[in-house]
């Protein structure tokens, strides 16, 4: 009987999704959803739902490397590789919470951006070291690192060879923010970068876009911040959230949605649009055109969400964010 069960299991094992290897590319400076999204990445890695290979930052601020390393250390991964953009054209952004990196409550060893690797170089190294078509890149900020990766020598071919999918938080694909022409921040703060990604990303590597409307419909409950993170005297997620949004705000989970899809794409937390192609216009609008409407590309899809998925996704995001870090 036991042999029969093992035999049947071996037949089904190819059907079980492989654990995704992820690179988390973030603009962790302005908004605080990046911090929660990074916490999710660590939790999912702790649960062995994914393998977190490294974190790269796409905006300029002197404390980005230090904060990311502080959060990585907090979550029990002090040696996780960190890369920062060296692109002077990428947006310089002030932050309400990055100063936590200097707090003695969050000891870590990477203190200066100069001591961190170049983001594009790090991504290239991580990609080269992994099996073909094995890496999911989660990009939740401006697309400076993704665009510079594509423009680097052999970048497009490297992406084509090593990347399984790009899960990107950018744009808007449905009515949101009281308009159906919403210009989303990750796009308008780096239109040229996002246009490069939309135009030059290889056709063979799918892109799944999480639009503004998804995060807008997933407000992180303030009561969780108020009550569920007190298991430690100092919690970097809680303190960053309070510094950014205060205690009386339900911050939309834009970036978290991209992490959830990237790792649990088969769990139907979201729906997917029909395949097509996203074009980024010069004013930052993301126009989606399905395959067959005058174009043949099937590369892009955007996330959709019904009311049941909305409840499931939000609960999943909450619990993946607040799980105590491994120590």
């Amino acid at each position, binding site marked *: 009987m036991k042999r029969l069960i093992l035999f049947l299991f071996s037949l089904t094992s190819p059907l079980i999704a492989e654990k995704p290897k992820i690179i988390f590319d973030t603009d962790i400076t302005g908004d605080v959803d990046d911090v929660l999204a990074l916490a999710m990445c660590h939790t999912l890695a702790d649960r062995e739902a994914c393998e977190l290979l490294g974190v790269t930052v796409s905006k300029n601020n002197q404390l980005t490397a230090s904060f990311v390393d502080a959060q990585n250390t907090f979550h029990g991964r002090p040696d996780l590789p960190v890369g920062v953009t060296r692109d002077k054209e990428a947006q310089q952004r002030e932050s309400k919470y990055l100063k936590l990196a200097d707090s003695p409550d969050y000891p870590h060893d990477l203190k200066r951006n100069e001591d961190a690797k170049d983001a594009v170089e790090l991504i290239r190294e991580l990609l080269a070291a992994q099996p073909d078509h094995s890496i999911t890149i989660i990009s939740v900020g401006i697309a400076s690192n993704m665009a510079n990766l594509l423009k680097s020598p052999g970048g497009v071919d490297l992406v084509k060879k090593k990347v399984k999918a790009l899960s990107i938080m950018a744009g808007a694909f*449905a*009515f949101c*923010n*009281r*308009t*159906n*022409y919403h*210009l989303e*921040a990750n796009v*308008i703060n780096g*239109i040229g970068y996002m246009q490069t990604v939309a135009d030059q990303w290889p056709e063979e590597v799918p892109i799944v876009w999480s639009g503004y409307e998804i995060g807008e419909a997933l407000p992180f409950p303030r009561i969780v911040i108020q009550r569920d993170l007190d298991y430690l005297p100092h919690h970097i997620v809680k303190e960053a959230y309070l510094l950014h949004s205060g205690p009386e705000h339900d911050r939309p989970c834009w970036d978290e949605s991209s992490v959830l899809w990237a790792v649990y794409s088969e769990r139907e937390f979201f729906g997917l649009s029909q395949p*097509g192609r996203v074009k980024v216009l*010069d*004013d930052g*609008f993301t*126009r*989606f*055109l*399905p395959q067959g*409407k*005058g*174009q043949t590309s099937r590369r892009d899809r955007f996330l959709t969400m019904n009311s049941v998925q909305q409840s499931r996704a939000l609960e999943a995001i909450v619990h993946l964010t607040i799980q105590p870090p491994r120590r």
Partner: protein
Amino acid sequence: MYTPLPMRRWTDFFVLIAVLTAMILFFGVLRESFFSAATLGSVANRIPALALVATGMTLVMVTGGIDLSVGSLLGLCGAAVGVMMADWHWGLMLALVGSVFVGGLIGSTTGAVSVKLGLPSFIVSLGMLEISRGLAFLTTDSQTKYIGADIESLGAPIGGLVISSAFVISVLFVVAGQVLLSHTAIGRHWIAVGANHEAALISGVPVDRPRILAHALLGALTGLAAVFNCSRLGSADPNAGVGFELSAIAAVVVGGTSLMGGRGSVVKSFMGVLIIATLEAGLVQIGASEPVKRVVTGTVIVIAVLADTWRRK
């Protein structure tokens, strides 16, 4: 001090120019990239639909009426365009005619019900707002209709310029609307009806047909605006136009058209459109949050009305 009417009109115009210039300089100081061809293009692309609807709204408001349904009508006409082009595979011109027809029909209905039954246009158009939005969702089965390249050409820049065919066409309609209002008999009837309905009636000026015609023209222009809106999106979204009526009314009020009727200018409404579009583009560029945008836009409207009221005392 009494200011002759022609001089007052020019003064109004130059005040609007000054406000627009000050706004451009203000945003330019806050964000250097505001002074760019990309920004100019962004503002220019926001204008066509709003300019057309503001033209029609000026005519309705001059008669003393108002139409709150134009946003929903934009959605309904857009839905019709989506069905015609995406499902029935009609060409752009045929769909454009169809959209204008649908808009004109709805506008005429709003006007006729309001005028013939003696109901305030505010209330009738409020009802039509809900009817049109419901019909938009029914027509599209609540789905976005993707149209693509067949319609995008209208909103695409002409040659090496930043302005589109839609922009040029909308400016032509602004000029035509101003000529209609200020140099034709129907224009004089609109002003007479809006200025004093009873006096116009006693004087033998037709009071019903001009008002219905104004609503019909607004509806037809909204139908054309819907086509331009679809070209901007590359698709027809049944949610299109939510809140659009407020932007249109704001532009017309900022341009100096009286909410009481009897006074207005299509060209100055267009200046109001430029001001509103520049304000919206500027607030996006400096990263203003949505609540801040709403507070600022509302404040601008109130100031415009106050300024106009104070000047006329």
